[in-house]
């Protein structure tokens, strides 16, 4: 029970930390999230799962067009 409470408190602190980030750092975190999410979606598609969503594909193309390998 204590470890669950600890986990909940840790998550709360982490989320508050995320909210307190500067705008620049939030966008940087968002761009990292985008790459991680794309990587997961691409693995899923390669393994025979659902295709990468259209909006994510569009983003990936936009990244490639500026020379970013994802």
């Amino acid at each position: 029970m204590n470890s669950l409470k600890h986990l909940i408190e840790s998550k709360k602190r982490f989320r508050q930390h995320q909210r307190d980030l500067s705008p620049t750092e939030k966008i940087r975190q968002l761009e990292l999230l985008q790459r991680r999410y794309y990587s997961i979606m691409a693995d899923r598609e390669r393994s025979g799962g659902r295709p990468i969503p259209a909006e994510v594909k569009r983003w990936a193309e936009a990244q490639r067009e500026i020379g970013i390998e994802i």
Partner: protein
Amino acid sequence: MTDITNLGPVIDVLADMRRIGIFSDYAIGGAVAGILYDEPFTTFDLDIFFFFVEDQTGLILSLEKIYNYARERGFVFDKDFIKIHGWPVQFVESSSTELWTEAIETAPIKSIDDRQIKVIDPEHLAAMWIFAGRKKDFYKIDKFDESKLMNADRLKDILVRFDLLTRWRTAQDAFSPEYRF
């Protein structure tokens, strides 16, 4: 200047579009605006709410000036989106919707990658999302509720003035007591 994000160069493009007279004013809206007030979550495009410099006449709104600008600089189109420095950007002309107009005019300025840009405030965002009424819009309002980001008095004032209170009330049982009007 070393860019920390890809959004910095996008802001430069928007500032240039304003400088040469395509926009008169603009602001970031949508999910990216939400992130700038709350915590990062995944979204894959950027919504820019804007006004043209010249009043648009005719029945069909023409984004020709934006498309020409993009074409001349080699930005690629994908349906409603223009891909600018790695970001799919959707331009939303806002002069015919009073809520959007006020949202842009009153948007505070934020600093991103040493550039300044207007970002629509949480109360106007919430009103725009309740107006749109999609499942993902309720999710974003819920996140704002959880983070207590909205000033309740300011929000209610906006909802009343733009005739959205009834719509808000149909959803507000899911919100915290301070956001039930």
